[in-house]
């Protein structure tokens, strides 16, 4: 049993805060500060601090459960796995491969998300796979791909935020959702930058703002167009940038012309003087950012809304400039990595498209299958859930609780109940697991190793810190066993690093290229930002949007000074000037660094030390081989060009329209949703932690006192919504 502190990451939101875990003699786990990780610098919120409580065996499942009449009863692993294999096989025989659906989650590690996608396509042969990230930031992803040719939540590290001149934060209450990140905004203000928060509610985050705009819910699109209009009216368009780095400006401008400030004021309720002040604060500094979150994204017109904010960043020359641009604050723990490697309906690993013949060939070769055997794109999340019980008769579900979290949850629950067969892998008996025919208890964050990719596009190693309780297995073991039972003996390893090695090959050449990343580097470098291709030569990569950073454009690196690495006893593998971060002192070098392994390195020592807390990658840990150049990863995207065929960003003309359902006589009140710091997602995990429940006991509704008076409610009264 391990007794030393393991540096790892929190299981919850997309910050993936660094933390140290130490098993205590009494079987519990202690969380301690890990101050060197740049995203949170030691800080944790209440959820992170209490995360080990979910590891305790009394709140979680430790035995497989199978349905016996109305009840779920304990069963052996063999029985449970046999039942799942039989259930899935029966459906496939009766209804064809697409009769079986797979539903994943943004909480799965990259290895699991990758394996789940492969399992669906190779073992089940189904096109019907998607995941809960569709309810999250998908519209930001779609808008980002349209505009920039690439979706990565943030195109810059969070540590750039305090150094910019102005941040417009749209529909994010990060003081509640990701508290350790609030510090970046506090520092922004300390540095003389300004914070503008756009939220219909005066949230904890809005309290921090220099300017808080409170638009009517569902009118963010008009707000962004009104700001763009004023940018044009006040002559603040960066004409040279628009000319050189974008296409489509005239149509986007015309759309903004249809949204003049007084009209936008009428739609949004935000006064024209406030709009003018916003434009002034955003345009005057040399650099500025727009960050969006679920507020603007989770709307019937979310993609257009995000597109409107991106247009604002393009017209003012912000995107792809140092300390500037548009970013999305992804929500779920692995919300970023979870959308890159194939658990989406239309997608193959490395952010490849399932309908791209070259992508199919590449991935099929890695998987050792015929490209034609891969199914085509399937349904996206809601459509998939909506089809349960009709043409999808069986479902394998991992890391998601759609009975609580899906849109039209009651309808989705009814669809789930109408399935012939449901298998759920989870840590706890969630509301969805309670409906299953078979429930498999699986390991969680601190009990298994795997990579996640945080909201910055930083790939991280989350390490096993403790021994899992008896009776649980990893998701990878589950998929391995099910594959074997369904006739695929090979290709589903249970060792996460082995899976990652395959993921590297599968992602190579894709938009989210992980091929230059190894577990060794992740441990060494506090994560590596994708894309990070394998370097074949000393020449810079041919993929053009990989930014060549200079000292001017990279004021903060994520890594300690290379000299330190060279001087340290374990750093002999990495000569001075060769480590990541070397560009800081060598601004003229291209974005290529080379490892120069010391001659004394013993390759055989690597497996034992590769996950050690102080070991550094040696030559053998770098599979590109001794002497080969190593790509440093890409903390900042688009500085030279965008990831489009011609390197230019695209303006997308968008127009405001009303929300899909406006208030009417029957439904007279417009409600929005919000988060509390103490709970996470559907609460399946956090509701099992006493301290968190004491802080936030359950859902509640906040109303204006006058509305409450009109509806006849009192403080603390129960209401049906």
């Amino acid at each position: 049993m391990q007794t030393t502190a393991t540096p790892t990451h929190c299981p919850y939101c997309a910050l993936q805060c660094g933390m140290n875990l130490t098993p205590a003699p009494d079987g519990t786990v202690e969380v301690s500060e890990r101050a060197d990780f740049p995203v949170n610098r030691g800080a944790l919120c209440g959820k992170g601090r209490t995360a080990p409580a979910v590891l305790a065996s009394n709140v979680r499942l430790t035995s497989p459960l199978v349905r016996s009449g109305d009840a779920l009863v304990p069963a052996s692993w063999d029985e449970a796995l046999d039942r799942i294999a039989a259930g899935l096989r029966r459906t496939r025989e009766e209804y064809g491969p697409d009769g079986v659906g797979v539903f994943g989650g943004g909480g799965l590690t990259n290895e699991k998300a990758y394996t789940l996608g492969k399992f669906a396509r190779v073992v089940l042969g189904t096109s019907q796979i998607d995941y809960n990230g569709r309810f999250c930031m998908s519209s930001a992803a779609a808008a980002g791909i349209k505009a920039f040719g690439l979706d990565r939540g943030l195109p810059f590290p969070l540590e750039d935020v305090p150094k910019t001149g102005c941040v417009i934060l749209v529909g994010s209450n990060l003081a509640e959702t990701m508290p350790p990140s609030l510090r970046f905004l506090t520092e922004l203000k300390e540095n003389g930058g300004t914070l503008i928060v756009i939220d219909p509610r005066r949230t904890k985050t809005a309290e921090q703002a220099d300017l808080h705009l409170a638009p009517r819910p569902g009118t963010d699109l008009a707000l962004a167009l009104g700001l763009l209009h004023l940018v044009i009216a006040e002559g603040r368009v960066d004409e040279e940038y628009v000319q050189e780095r974008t296409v489509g400006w005239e149509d986007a401008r015309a759309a903004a012309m249809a949204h003049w400030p007084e009209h936008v004021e009428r739609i949004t309720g935000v006064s024209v003087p406030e709009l003018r002040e916003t434009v002034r604060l955003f345009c005057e500094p040399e650099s500025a950012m727009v960050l969006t979150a679920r507020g603007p994204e989770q709307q019937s017109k979310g993609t257009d809304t995000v597109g409107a904010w991106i247009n604002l960043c393009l017209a003012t020359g912000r995107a792809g400039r140092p300390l500037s641009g548009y970013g999305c604050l992804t929500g779920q723990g692995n919300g970023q990595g979870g959308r890159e490697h194939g658990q989406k309906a239309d997608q193959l690993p490395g952010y490849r498209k399932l309908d791209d013949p070259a992508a199919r060939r590449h991935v099929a070769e890695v998987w050792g299958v015929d490209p034609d055997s891969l199914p085509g794109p399937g349904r996206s999340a809601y459509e998939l859930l909506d089809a349960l019980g009709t043409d999808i008769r069986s479902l394998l579900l991992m890391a998601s609780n759609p009975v609580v979290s899906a849109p039209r949850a009651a309808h989705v629950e009814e669809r789930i109940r109408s399935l012939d067969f449901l298998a759920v892998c989870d840590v706890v008996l969630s509301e969805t697991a309670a409906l299953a025919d078979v429930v498999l208890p699986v390991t969680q964050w601190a009990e298994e190793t795997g990579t996640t990719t945080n909201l910055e596009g930083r790939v991280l190693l989350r390490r096993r810190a403790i021994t899992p309780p008896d009776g649980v297995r990893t998701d990878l073991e589950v998929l391995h066993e099910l594959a074997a039972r369904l006739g695929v003996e090979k290709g589903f390893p249970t060792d996460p690093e082995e899976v990652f090695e395959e993921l590297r090959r599968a992602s190579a050449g894709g938009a989210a290229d992980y091929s230059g990343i190894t577990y060794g580097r992740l441990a060494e470098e506090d994560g590596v930002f994708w894309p990070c291709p394998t370097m074949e030569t000393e020449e810079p990569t041919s993929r053009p949007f990989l930014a060549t950073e200079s000292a001017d454009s990279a004021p903060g690196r994520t890594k300690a000074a290379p000299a330190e690495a060279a001087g340290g006893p374990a750093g002999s593998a990495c000569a001075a000037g060769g480590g990541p971060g070397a560009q800081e002192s060598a601004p003229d070098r291209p974005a290529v660094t080379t490892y120069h392994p010391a001659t004394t390195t013993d390759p055989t020592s690597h497996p034992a030390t590769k996950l050690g807390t102080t070991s550094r990658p040696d030559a053998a840990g770098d599979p590109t081989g001794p002497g080969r150049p190593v790509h440093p990863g890409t903390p900042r995207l688009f500085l030279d060009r965008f990831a489009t065929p011609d390197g230019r960003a695209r303006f997308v003309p968008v127009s405001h329209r009303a929300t899909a359902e406006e208030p009417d006589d029957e439904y007279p009140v417009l409600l929005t949703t919000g988060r509390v710091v103490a709970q996470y997602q559907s609460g399946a995990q956090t509701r099992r932690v006493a301290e968190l429940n004491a802080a936030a006991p359950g859902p509640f509704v906040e109303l204006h006192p006058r509305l409450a008076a009109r509806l006849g409610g009192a403080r603390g009264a129960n209401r049906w919504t």
Partner: protein
Amino acid sequence: MTSNERVVVIGTGLAGVRLARRLGELGTPASLIGEEEHRPYNRVLLAEVLAGRYGPEVVALPAPAELRRGRVTGIDRDGRTVTCADGTVIAYDRLVLATGSNPVLPPLRGLFTPDHVLPEGVHAFRTMDDCLGLSKAVRPGARAVVIGGGLLGVSAARALALRGAQVVLAQQSERLMERQLDPAASKLVKRHLTDLGVEVHTECRVRDVRCVGGAVRLVEMADGYALDADLVVVACGVRPRVGLAQAAGLDVRKGVVVDDELRTSDPYIHAIGDCAQHDGVVYGLAAPALEQADALAELLAGDVNTRYTGTRSLTRLTLNGHEGPFDLAAFGETEALPGDDVVQLADATRGTYRKVVVRDDRLVGGVLIGELGTVGALARAWEGAEPLPSDGGPLLHLLTNDGGS
């Protein structure tokens, strides 16, 4: 209706373009016919073009897919076709009149040349052509007379002053924007114009326009006083363009009469925007025109339950001057009747003025000048027409940023 029906829209102003775009988005493409030679543009912004804030090409609207240039000369309701001046005949299943309005040209002596066009130097201020003509003619020091002190006249005077003209504004009634503002607010608008160098004459009726060699020279007042003029802008309001509807025998009063489904007296013909009269009202404003366009788009795309039930909107004006913008919002009845409650806050130093008029438990009117922090809350209270809170508060929350909420 079904989506394969052919919708033809006459008029490429804000209402027509918005309707065609929305229909396109909803999967029911429409064919748009307009007679202006410019790409459809946002008329609301013409004063800003005249002021030099935008180039004329910048105010273009997103162009609808199917746009035809032509002047419709007649509607054959039985055959469901329209005929254009060039002889083209276009069939429709649904026809939408979005023909807008024409400027009112008052009966002034000398306003028209013998062949019934405006003399050189005299301009209406309604279309892009008017705007470009004015823009071309105005130069620093030019003597300009604006006839009319309503919203349009005030905007035109301000824009010409910003271009360096010596502007005289002649208003027939006793104060500016009397339809929208109370006397105190009118005074602040006047002060703003005066600060820009505009000479404002109220209670001043223009009698005739004198030309020499076909070009304007002089504007003569009823009292005999005469103003030298290189330029004259006629800003005396607008009148719905209803000629086609009248000729087709549709029910036309002030405008083309429509019901809550924006149907005229012919169920296959609709009307929206400045030319339409709904529930007795011809709005002549952008916000109602856009709301009507949105509602009709939903109806024509198949959402049969959509209704247009009227618009309660604010008059909003931003006058951008040399010393920052002058913001103005006004709605409803801005002058109190006996028994009404009035809350008023004025700051002479900063030139701000805020006032609301409340009758029983309803907001009936208000003005905000210079300080628009609560315009959103005030607009919601006005648009929603809901009873005001009866907690005995002094209604200050409608005028102050944080109070009462």
